[in-house]
């Protein structure tokens, strides 16, 4: 197991320990409930794309996020949507002769998960869920030099994975929730895989008029966990101020590392979000 994988594993174990030690004496029952949440806040993106630069690019933005959850007895279904658009820059603030490199980054994802309750710890009022998810994420990077020369790279990945969810209710209010979610991609395919120097893909049309960026997605190929490692964690606290309306605080973290071209070119990406939002229950 690599160093990073070991660190991730310990991080997950710590998170689980953390949630299990936030104690409460309530018993936990889930009625059929719908939760709709709209969130915004602070989103930080960090990417290292070997295809376009040896440097790490960073940026922050105010994102838009939507989440719908359906609680039904022993299952939870969830749909999430996220979008933001920002400029990323490297640690070099001055280039010579004074012409900047920067990246316009578009991020969007849609995610559906279905989890079944595995176990309840009634003493701590905690329920553990596990299941699968399907999601699609687009991380499109338009890398600029000199404000007019630019190249496109990115990831357009659809994947199947597993999802692990821990939910805790509080004694003070049955409706207030603290949850931790971990999900990881198992098998995926990237429609922007196998790019090289940001201008070409492994397969291109012999007609120049067809080699638009969209047509470079001809190089679709499945990427297994060896080529594409992705996981997300999410911890959220939900508090209702009345029977229907509440607010939610959420911290979300995503990491992926994809082998874009053989053993030569990789993309690493981190997204860290701190969100606050309105949640409606019905």
């Amino acid at each position: 197991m690599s160093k990073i994988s070991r660190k991730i594993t310990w991080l997950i174990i710590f998170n689980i320990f953390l949630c299990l030690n936030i104690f409460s004496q309530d018993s936990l029952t889930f009625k059929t409930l719908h939760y709709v949440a709209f969130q915004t806040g602070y989103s930080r993106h960090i990417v290292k794309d070997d295809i376009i630069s040896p440097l790490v690019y960073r940026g922050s933005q105010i994102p838009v996020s939507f989440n719908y959850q359906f609680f039904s007895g022993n299952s939870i279904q969830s749909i999430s949507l996220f979008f933001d658009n920002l400029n990323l820059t490297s640690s070099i603030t001055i280039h010579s002769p004074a012409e900047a490199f920067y990246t316009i980054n578009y991020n969007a994802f849609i995610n559906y998960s279905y989890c079944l309750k595995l176990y309840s710890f009634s003493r701590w009022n905690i329920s553990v869920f596990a299941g699968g998810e399907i999601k699609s994420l687009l991380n499109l990077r338009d890398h600029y030099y000199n404000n007019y020369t630019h190249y496109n790279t990115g990831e357009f990945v659809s994947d199947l994975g597993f999802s692990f969810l821990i939910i805790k209710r509080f004694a003070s209010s049955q409706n207030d929730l603290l949850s931790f979610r971990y999900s990881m991609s198992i098998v995926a395919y990237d429609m922007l895989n196998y790019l090289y120097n940001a201008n070409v893909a492994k397969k291109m049309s012999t007609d120049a008029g067809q080699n638009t960026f969209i047509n470079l997605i001809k190089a679709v190929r499945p990427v297994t966990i060896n080529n594409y490692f992705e996981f997300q964690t999410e911890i959220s606290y939900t508090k209702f101020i009345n029977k229907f309306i509440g607010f939610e605080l959420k911290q979300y973290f995503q990491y992926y590392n994809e082998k874009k071209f053989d053993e030569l070119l990789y993309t690493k990406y981190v997204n860290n979000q701190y969100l606050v939002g309105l949640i409606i229950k019905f």
Partner: protein
Amino acid sequence: MRVIWLLIFVVITQGCEKIYFKNEPDNSPVTNFEIFTKDFDRNYSQFVIRQINWDSISNIYRLKINLNSSNQDLFNVFNEMIQLLKDGHVNLYSPIGVASYNNLFPTNYRGNQLINANKYISFSSLYNSAIESGTVNSYNIGYIQVNTFYSSEFGNADPRYNLIDNILQQNKDKDGIIIDVRGNGGGNGDNALTIASRFADKRRLYYKQKYKNGPGKNDFSDWVNFYLDPQGEVQFTKPVVVLMSRCTFSAAEIFVSAMRVFPNVTLVGDTTTGGIGNPVYRELPNGWSYRLSTSIGALADGSIIDGKGIVPDVTIIPLKTDTTTDIMLEKAIGVIMK
């Protein structure tokens, strides 16, 4: 208590960013040299056609760089390496200066310009900073000089080149037209095609390009075909001569390759520079940037342009002492009047 645990978790997660990106390259001269040479090794497209052994060059110049090398030392090394490539699309940009191939164009060369303009051309009022036009004195022949194909609005086709429609309207009754790109150092290929498309009789294959798509010296895509369709308000399909020289470079060579496939066009002058390149731009940890060629261009018949140039149909080269007679232009007139 719960809030404290939450805050601890948030702080730890924030710190996780550094776990994943701790290997950002340092800014030592050695690291900058390694990134530069490895990037060329993986992406530069013309080592084979220019017969350059980049591994040897890198090994030799690596000995000149160490952790204590100054910026000037590093610049000098990069500059010397760029000279060896002999490629006008390879440049390094730094606070010290710009490194380019110094001998891209010949010196004391009269072939790149209109000699004794007033003797030969009566210029018209249809001109702008990119294009000039007029009439050849004593002949019913139009003259168009395209000085550059650069765009004033970066990256986009420049509307200045649409003046060609007005020029061709004015010259529609001429016996022929001479298009002079002898001193055209290139620019935006779209602008070159704006002009060339006005001389197209039908859709034609005019150019091919293959792209470096792997780290091996011979890792290229298949040849990608480029076609040109007639465009614009007026098509001029009477005799045309394109004047070219050793200073006709880059997008101007795209123009020549397009004009070459039309049956009414004759190329007169000297072989072009030989550089298409399709360069990409890169950066180094020290803030310097550079560009390098990532493709190879060829004519419609497959003849490679990079490193070789486009050979004219009629070769004629003025002497260095020619100051009053433009023998290239006179030959062009003769071709049209034949």
